[in-house]
């Protein structure tokens, strides 16, 4: 078992550009730790649990080291040829079958090919995350155009962060993985409940997020108290709402003990975590605008564009000044393309908006 553990560790280390002596040292350290715990009478499975499976610790051990690249044969040529292939297919679909729309979708093979080839070099675990926006968008557009399911079709975009978390699962504990995924699962459950007519009270499913998070609480008694208060709060809220349907809001008082306990223990903050406050504000504001445009004006099909504000803001804050304009153009192009198509039915021409991306990049580098 020890031999297998060390062999797995070594083979994972071999995927990184690291000096051989450094790899040997790491393996030797783990050998020492393994033997140390064996000496204390621990069983193999206990030791592996204590040290962490090689796959779950490899990121920590190789922090700062690049992965060894294993280029796919002919990968660069495939990337270079993909725009031409896409253009030819697009013209064939357009001129031959009058499928300008949705034929334009073929252009997504350009970034998709580049992502597969580039990320495939290092067998990047986040490959499916990087591809998910394209597939989510395609599915969303399909649901919208052919089944008029713009709402709740937008929920498909939840797959992007969920895949991101899922692909990082090896570095997370099981509980942390479930807690990280819970907001998205709660979101899906909320929409499902809403579509059954439970929009008003369905939000309580989001309480599963803190309830799961609280399972991390080390003080067992405190954890039990929190969980009981949540269950009592939900039960009280639903009881008040269903017994006196005109007084749903009063049911919120059932959650007062949670707020009071939270304030006493210092667990309740308005903005938490390491995320800068402005991001929280932008995320909340764009979600609010999205829901407002959707519910009031029934613009589910186009309202999702407001979420582009988040990456655009991030680029303008985080990216080097010289890269900002070029990095922002894909979002501008996408917005122009989608608005022209959605409101004016100009799908056959609006894809031209994407030409601003290479034009801006060329002008910038000229």
């Amino acid at each position: 078992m020890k031999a297998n553990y060390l062999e797995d560790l070594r083979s994972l280390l071999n995927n990184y550009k690291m000096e051989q002596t450094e790899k040997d040292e790491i393996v030797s350290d783990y050998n020492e730790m393994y033997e140390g715990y064996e000496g204390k009478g621990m069983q193999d499975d206990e030791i592996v649990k204590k040290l962490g499976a090689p796959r779950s610790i490899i990121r920590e051990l190789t922090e700062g080291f690049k992965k060894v690249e294993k280029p796919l044969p002919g990968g660069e040529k495939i990337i270079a040829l993909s725009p031409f292939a896409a253009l030819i297919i697009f013209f064939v679909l357009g001129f031959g079958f009058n499928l300008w729309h949705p034929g334009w979708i073929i252009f997504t093979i350009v970034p998709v090919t580049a992502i597969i080839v580039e990320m495939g070099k290092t067998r990047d675990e986040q490959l499916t995350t990087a591809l998910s926006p394209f597939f989510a968008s395609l599915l969303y557009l399909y649901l919208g155009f052919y089944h008029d399911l713009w709402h709740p079709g937008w929920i498909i975009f939840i797959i992007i962060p969920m895949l991101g978390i899922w692909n990082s699962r090896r570095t997370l504990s099981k509980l942390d993985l479930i807690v990280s995924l819970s907001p998205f699962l709660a979101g899906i459950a909320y929409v499902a409940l809403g579509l059954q007519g439970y929009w008003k009270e369905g939000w309580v499913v989001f309480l599963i997020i803190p309830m799961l998070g609280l399972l991390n609480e080390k003080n067992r008694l405190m954890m039990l108290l929190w969980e009981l208060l949540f269950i009592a709060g939900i039960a009280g809220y639903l009881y008040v709402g269903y017994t006196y349907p005109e007084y749903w809001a009063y049911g919120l008082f059932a959650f007062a003990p949670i707020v009071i306990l939270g304030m006493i223990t210092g667990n309740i903050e308005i903005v938490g975590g390491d995320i800068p406050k402005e991001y929280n504000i932008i995320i909340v504001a764009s979600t609010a605008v999205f829901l407002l445009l959707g519910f009031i004006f029934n613009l589910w099909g186009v309202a999702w564009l407001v979420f582009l504000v988040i990456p655009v803001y991030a680029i303008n804050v985080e990216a080097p000044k010289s890269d900002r304009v070029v990095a922002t153009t894909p979002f501008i192009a996408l917005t122009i393309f989608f608005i022209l198509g959605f409101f004016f039915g100009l799908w056959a021409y609006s894809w031209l908006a994407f030409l601003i991306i290479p034009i801006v990049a060329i002008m910038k580098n000229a």
Partner: protein
Amino acid sequence: MNSQFKRGIIEMCVLKIISRKDMYGFELIENISSEIEVNENTIYPILRRLTKQGLFDTYTESMSIGAPRKYYKLTEHGTHKLNEYEDEWRSFLDSVYRILGGASNES
């Protein structure tokens, strides 16, 4: 506690413990974890990094059973760094105590 901050403190503790006695990695983990909650995967990278920076020298001692043990010994450069860290840490704590209005750790 911020993990970066905690890692810095653990680094100083590692230097201090090894300044008292040469130790092998597992022995050090046992020693330090009796006082602070630490993970094995935190200590070994610290030992490797500090060795690379010349703060530790290593030597091996063979065992009757199992692989030879690698012992860590503080170098002169390591001793100098440890003194520096300790001074910084004490002065930092004094400032914190002054702000909090409590007693200084020097008292």
